[in-house]
């Protein structure tokens, strides 16, 4: 910070007369900026013989660097310094910086950047497929040798991604149920077809909203946690340590998480279906005056068990997408803390993208086989 006071003290810091250049006052990082300005205003009338620095009160290495610049600007002049400052000046002079140009970010043309993106996309896909291959390898191994199964990791995942998420998943699905019933109820009421709210809600919640909303919540909540924890383990060299112990990080860290999530996501979706329908029930009573008993009766009569199964059947796929992408991106962390953040973000974005893609695919297949 250059205050008014320091600016004033700087005015006389660099003075030119017939004997030479006189330096005085504070020559430190704080005054360097002002000194540089003064140096630029120096008007030379003739050659100078001495640079007198004996009146400098305070000198640090930045000041010494500037003095060194002055001696290079006036190579024929001799520099006089006090003993204490001379040592510092010598140190700085000895380490006179070697100019290395700052690396400027290379600006590639548009086509090259596009090509790079495409290349990155395919190489990442290639790596992901290889990762799935490894998962298959260990799945077969676990089936053949069940004693290898890491039950502890699986149950820990069930606890953390399932039980601990009950509150948030339940609350959000309940609210979704309320919102859906409110929006659709208004429309149905104008046709006098209020009771069909149950049919609409039942199909949309059981087949689409329940699995989709739950999967997206879990992707944000647990998929990101997988990526961040594996990434941090890489930064701490824990992954390397596992590898040197002859343990595959994929088996030790990823398999249990993926299996655990495949177990727990269908259960979470069942819970989400229940709370969403409960939200709908409350809204139907408040807005459409449908009694809960009527609501349940209608639900029982019009919604077949098939809708429920068709919703649930998608969830293991969603669980696999979330957990495998989370772990995959965690393993792709390179370098430090910055990379952990990048890969965690990627894991969530890709997981949600793939969930929606998979959901669309399920819809197409199901309509093709007429279920």
């Amino acid at each position: 910070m250059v205050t008014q006071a320091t600016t004033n003290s700087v005015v006389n810091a660099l003075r030119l007369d017939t004997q030479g250049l006189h330096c005085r006052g504070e020559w430190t990082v704080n005054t360097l900026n002002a000194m540089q300005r003064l140096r630029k205003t120096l008007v030379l009338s003739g050659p100078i013989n001495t640079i007198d620095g004996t009146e400098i009160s305070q000198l640090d290495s930045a000041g010494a660097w500037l003095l060194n610049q002055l001696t290079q600007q006036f190579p024929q002049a001799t520099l006089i310094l006090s003993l204490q400052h001379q040592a510092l000046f010598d140190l700085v002079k000895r380490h006179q910086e070697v100019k290395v140009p700052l690396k400027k970010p290379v600006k590639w043309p548009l086509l090259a950047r596009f090509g790079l993106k495409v290349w990155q996309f395919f190489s990442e896909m290639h790596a992901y497929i290889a990762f799935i291959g490894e998962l298959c390898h260990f799945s077969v191994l676990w089936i053949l040798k069940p004693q290898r199964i890491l039950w502890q990791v699986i149950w820990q995942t069930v606890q953390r991604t399932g039980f601990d998420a009950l509150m948030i998943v339940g609350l959000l699905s309940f609210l979704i149920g309320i919102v859906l019933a409110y929006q659709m109820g208004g429309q149905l009421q104008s046709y006098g077809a209020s009771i069909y709210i149950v049919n609409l809600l039942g199909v949309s919640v059981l087949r689409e909203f329940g699995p989709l909303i739950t999967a997206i919540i879990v992707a944000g909540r647990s998929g990101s946690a997988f990526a961040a924890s594996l990434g941090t383990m890489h930064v701490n060299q824990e992954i390397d340590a596992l590898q040197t112990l002859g343990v595959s990080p994929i088996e030790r860290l990823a398999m249990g998480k993926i299996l655990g999530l495949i177990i727990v996501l269908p259960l979470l979706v069942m819970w989400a279906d229940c709370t969403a329908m409960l939200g709908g029930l409350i809204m139907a009573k408040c807005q459409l005056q449908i009694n809960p008993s009527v609501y349940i009766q209608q639900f029982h009569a019009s919604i077949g068990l098939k809708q429920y199964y068709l919703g649930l059947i998608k969830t293991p796929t969603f669980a696999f997408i979330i957990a495998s992408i989370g772990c995959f991106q965690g393993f792709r962390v390179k370098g430090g803390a910055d990379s952990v953040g990048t890969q965690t973000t990627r894991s969530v974005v890709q997981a949600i993208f793939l969930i929606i893609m998979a959901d669309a695919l399920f819809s197409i297949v199901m309509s093709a086989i007429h279920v």
Partner: protein
Amino acid sequence: MSNTDTIIDIKHLHTGFDGTLIHQDLNLTVTRGEIVAIVGGSGSGKTTLLNCLLMLIEPLKGKIDMFGKNITQGSAQLRQSIRKRWGILFQSGALFSELTVLQNTMLPLQLETRMSLTDCTHIAQLKIAMAGLPASAANKYPAELSGGMIKRAALARAIALDPQLLLLDEPSAGLDPISASALDQLILELRQTMNLTIIIVTHDLDTLLTVPDRIAFLGDKRVLQIGTLKELIHSDIPMIQDYFNNARANRTFKDM
């Protein structure tokens, strides 16, 4: 000893976490231009003491004066002004991983001064050279550096602003003997030319032999003894005798 020459004055310091006391009635004074080493067995609270000085943890009781100002009860403004007067070398470097070595070194300069970018770059490159790094390391990211180079880059950042006080946490740990002794020489040279006060937390016996003026031995939750290396080697406190009387220490200190 006049008051202005006391850089650090710790009085009756108590620290602890979760009910366990780490320091009890610890006293330590460091004067200007001095190099003080802090040694002690594992778990004797060396790093906690350092963190306390750095205002990263709050002491339970006691008083720490730095540059003649009480930092345990000081205002936020005072604490901020103290933070601009020291340089710290963390044990694992603590370089910012998204910045190059040059950008890491420039960061304190850009935060604290209004120098132009070119001047900042020049000063930072000078500091990198002073820390003993080749100029080509300036454009590298911390992940691309070896352990010794990370230490040197962290030292370059620590001395970027020519601080009056330098705190070094295990500067030579994990370095090869040549780099370690070069670093020791560098520390001595910096002290001489820049009139630095330096606190070193170290386990390195060779560093203890060459660098510090005084050594503070931590044990039993306090400073057991403070003095020159010779005084400590000939100490009659059992814990200090154990530390300096083993095969390794005897080889290093056989002339003393």
